């Protein structure tokens, strides 16, 4: 039986942000997540760090929160945020009368907006449609949701917080109308874990309705499904929004080496309804076309879907439902020690975490103030460490890696240094092994062996998909055709076991990619798919091996 003060349920941005905040204020806390890091909505959105401009007309309060949090995250989350700015673009298909109220709203929310001529805009973003009418520069940015959660975890762990992944809560225990503990099942081993605690924070996002129900509470959570598509290249350097009331498919977000277009909005009854469909994809492309007339020609890598945890106590739904968040103390419902955070959006995750932590701290009579807006999530990389790493990693990979790894950079460097010494001693080296024994496994995203090894050794890594999320391995053009085989081979070679046998690991990895390919199977990406099937089934007989091997 573990003992702690607070159990946080949900390993997305809000939950991990809450774990961090509690830990920084000295409150013992444990987080439970049913999947991997950011397995829910925090890794299934377009990666836009809102300036708030999207909400200024309908939801001025959200807009104001967005711009404040946007500025904070730029400071504390340097490894996760790419400061790009954004455009709001009025196309001939949009109502020009929307501009006036929109500008007023931006002003009221305190968001700095500057109009430029379409000609200037086209100079900066030449792929935009030439017939655009008006363009406004806004302080939008891009954020890697997965990494944001990871870095929050690293920060929380520095202060003693602990996060258990692949642990699904099965029971919230109560005694005399108060929470007294939680039972969770380790989904990897099947074992049960009992935790005694005084407070439970329900930060399960789209699953928060289910978690509330587990405690016998009612919560009006409507999962709302959003589908997005990932293009093979970065055809815009800025976030591009259509200047009109919020609608489907109107935001393009550059992200690393790709561009993401989102999002649709459709109510669903399942929080894990994340299989994208062909009609959604064609609809997205249609709506994106007035901004980028070539959008049908661009190569699509994959589609994916996530669910928004809309909080709908009054019965509003879809785009009409507020994107705002609510901290609900269930003491009013007769259960002491249970606090839920409903609704919200990734941009304001930190604020949500702060509010819920304030609530918890009031109850626990902890008066330490919140410092999550001041302290960076991860320490900036030590220049001495970077200098050492520069000898063993390609320069471009080094920068990407430092952002990806955060606190694990030093560990990865140590692995590479040990490998380099071993390689030198055995003369088992090759010029393309950077520094010896450290080959580049994924050319698309510049991932070296040492990084894969470091991530694979992390106890919370179970599958190639976990490695993909941490390192971005397999996220590029080849979608893992070459690097997944190399990674599995290297892991076996270095004696690092994954949860599944090698062939099974590969199959699961390819299967995950396949899910995102099915609705976008045309053009160059269809050829890539056939290539991948030719290699893994046609040449390597992975499909046959699944039945013929003993595992």
């Amino acid at each position, binding site marked *: 039986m573990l003992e702690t003060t607070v159990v946080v349920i949900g390993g997305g941005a809000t939950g991990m942000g809450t774990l961090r905040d509690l830990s920084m204020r000295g409150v013992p806390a444990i987080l439970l997540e049913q999947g991997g890091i950011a397995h829910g909505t925090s890794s299934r959105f377009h990666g836009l760090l809102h300036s708030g401009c999207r909400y200024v007309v309908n939801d001025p309060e959200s807009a104001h929160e967005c711009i404040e949090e946007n500025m904070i995250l730029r400071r504390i989350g340097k490894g996760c945020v790419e400061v790009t700015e954004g455009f709001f673009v009025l196309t001939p298909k949009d109502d020009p009368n929307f501009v006036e109220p929109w500008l007023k709203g931006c002003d009221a929310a305190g968001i700095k907006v500057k109009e430029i001529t379409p000609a200037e805009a086209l100079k900066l973003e030449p792929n935009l449609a030439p017939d655009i009418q008006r363009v406004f520069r806004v302080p939008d940015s891009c954020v890697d949701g997965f990494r944001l959660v990871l870095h929050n975890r690293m920060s929380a762990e520095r202060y003693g917080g602990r996060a258990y992944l692949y642990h699904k809560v099965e029971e919230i225990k109560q005694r005399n109308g108060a929470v007294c503990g939680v039972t969770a099942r380790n989904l990897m081993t099947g074992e049960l874990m009992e935790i005694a605690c005084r407070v439970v924070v329900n930060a399960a996002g789209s699953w928060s309705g289910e978690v509330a129900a587990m405690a016998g509470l009612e919560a009006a959570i409507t999962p709302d499904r959003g589908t997005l598509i990932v293009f093979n290249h970065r055809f815009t350097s800025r976030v591009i929004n259509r200047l009109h009331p919020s609608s489907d498919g109107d935001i393009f977000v550059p992200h690393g080496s790709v561009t993401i277009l989102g999002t649709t909005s459709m109510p669903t009854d399942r929080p894990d309804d994340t299989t994208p469909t062909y009609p959604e994809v064609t609809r997205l492309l249609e709506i994106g076309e007035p901004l980028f007339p070539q959008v049908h020609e661009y190569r699509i890598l994959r589609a994916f879907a996530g669910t928004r945890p809309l909080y709908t106590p009054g019965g509003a739904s879809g785009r009409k439902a507020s994107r705002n968040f609510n901290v609900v103390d269930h003491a009013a419902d007769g259960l002491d020690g249970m606090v839920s955070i409903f609704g919200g959006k990734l941009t304001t995750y930190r604020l949500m975490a702060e509010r819920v932590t304030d609530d918890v701290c009031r109850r626990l009579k902890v008066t330490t103030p919140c410092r999550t807006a001041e302290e960076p999530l991860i320490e900036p990389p030590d220049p001495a460490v970077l200098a050492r790493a520069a000898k063993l990693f390609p320069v471009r990979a080094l920068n990407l890696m430092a952002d990806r790894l955060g606190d694990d950079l030093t560990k990865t460097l140590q692995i590479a240094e040990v490998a380099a010494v071993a390689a030198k001693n055995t003369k088992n080296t090759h010029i393309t092994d950077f520094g010896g024994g450290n080959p580049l496994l994924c050319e698309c995203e510049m991932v070296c062996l040492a990084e894969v090894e470091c991530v694979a050794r992390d106890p919370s890594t179970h599958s190639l998909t976990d490695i993909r999320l941490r390192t971005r391995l397999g996220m590029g053009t080849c979608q893992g055709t070459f690097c997944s085989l190399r990674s599995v081979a*290297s892991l076996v070679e270095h004696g690092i076991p994954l949860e599944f046998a090698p062939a099974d690991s590969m199959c699961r990895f390819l299967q995950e990619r396949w899910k995102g390919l*099915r609705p976008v199977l045309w053009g160059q990406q269809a050829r890539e798919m056939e290539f991948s099937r030719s290699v893994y089934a046609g*040449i390597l007989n992975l499909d046959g091996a699944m039945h013929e091997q003993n595992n």
Partner: protein
Amino acid sequence: MSRTTDVIVVGSGLGGLMAALAAARQGREVRIISEGTGCLAIGTGCVDLLGYAPDGASVEDPWAAMTELAPAHPYSLLGAEKVRAGLDALMETTAKHGLVLRPASRDGKPRNTRVPTIMGTLKPTYLMPDTFEPDDLGKAKRVLVASVMGFRDCRPALVIDQLRRYPDWADKEYFPCLIPTPFDDAHRALNALDLARAAERPGGSEWLIGSLKERAEGCDLVLMPPICGRHAGSPLARELREALGCPVVEMLSIPPGVGGLRIRDALMRELAALGVELVENANVIGAGVAEGKCHSLDISSTGRSYSTKARAYVLATGGILGGGVLLEPGRAIERVFGLDLALPTDVADWTEPEIFGSQAVSKVGVRVDDKLRPLDANGALALENVFFAGRSLGAHDPAVEKSGYGVALATGWQAGLAAAELAAAAHNTGEAATGGEQ
């Protein structure tokens, strides 16, 4: 406008080369129009016929299993005897250029053999190079699994881990071995083709033998990636086998396809000897069609456009991967003639949730009659002097069936024969291709 020839073959994968070979052997004048290198550049050195039945059952005797396939399957259209004719032609031709391919047999009957891959999986295949005996695989007790330092695609540790998971490979003793790279100074990651080329340079044989000799002592089987030369008839594998005193098996490898390039090398040499014209880097961008016949192909090549004519045409343009079949949102078309290809109306039905399931989209292709001529949506003959071969044909999924080379070589051979026959008839009647001066 180039001179009218007898037969134009579009595509230089295995289907295209076999078609050209068939037509040239019939004494026809043949021109190959080729955009790239085709499937052999990514394929292995073993020839698959049929490894798995439609129900997923493993196939021992491909000739027997072939008769159980759906009526639209290319093998069913041809019948086993015509498949055998193509296979015999391939074996005879590659052997002539030093690459002897032959099947394993049991009780006097040819059968599939399961050959290790660089991932350590086993794949059923039909023809193998004669540098090893299929029985060597089963009999071996002490196996050296060798690869090259810095070669990322083949790691002995994975091969061994995977092989041990097969009941009939579990009880062997394995020894991993990494030999030094032959490059003092390579500036990019090594692939199998780099290594195969290096092995053919002066000193290459010494490199392989020298690095493996000691390690292979006491072993009765050496598994290695396909790096013993990139040409048909390279003596390296045989020399290695003799020097090591034990069988050497090159594992099936991911692209670049060294094994496939060896087969290509043999066929290209034969075609050159037969005087077949090869036009490379040429992209067919359209076709002239009148009265149910093709009378010319529009070519774009290195910045210029022209048209080219023949009495009969073989289209071995490949499937989705090769570019002969174009997938567009909601539909599929054949690239050169714009033939509409049948796919389920609802895109959701194009695929199945399991990646290696039976995908409708992977079986998309041109529908043909038993002479391999294209049919329209109503089942009527669309073009009477055009023959389709290889992956451009529908109704088979070579990735899952392990039938890629088999379908390509059999349909290529038959399409080439049919085109030659048609061209000869046109010659005899004095009829040129319709329209245009010669």
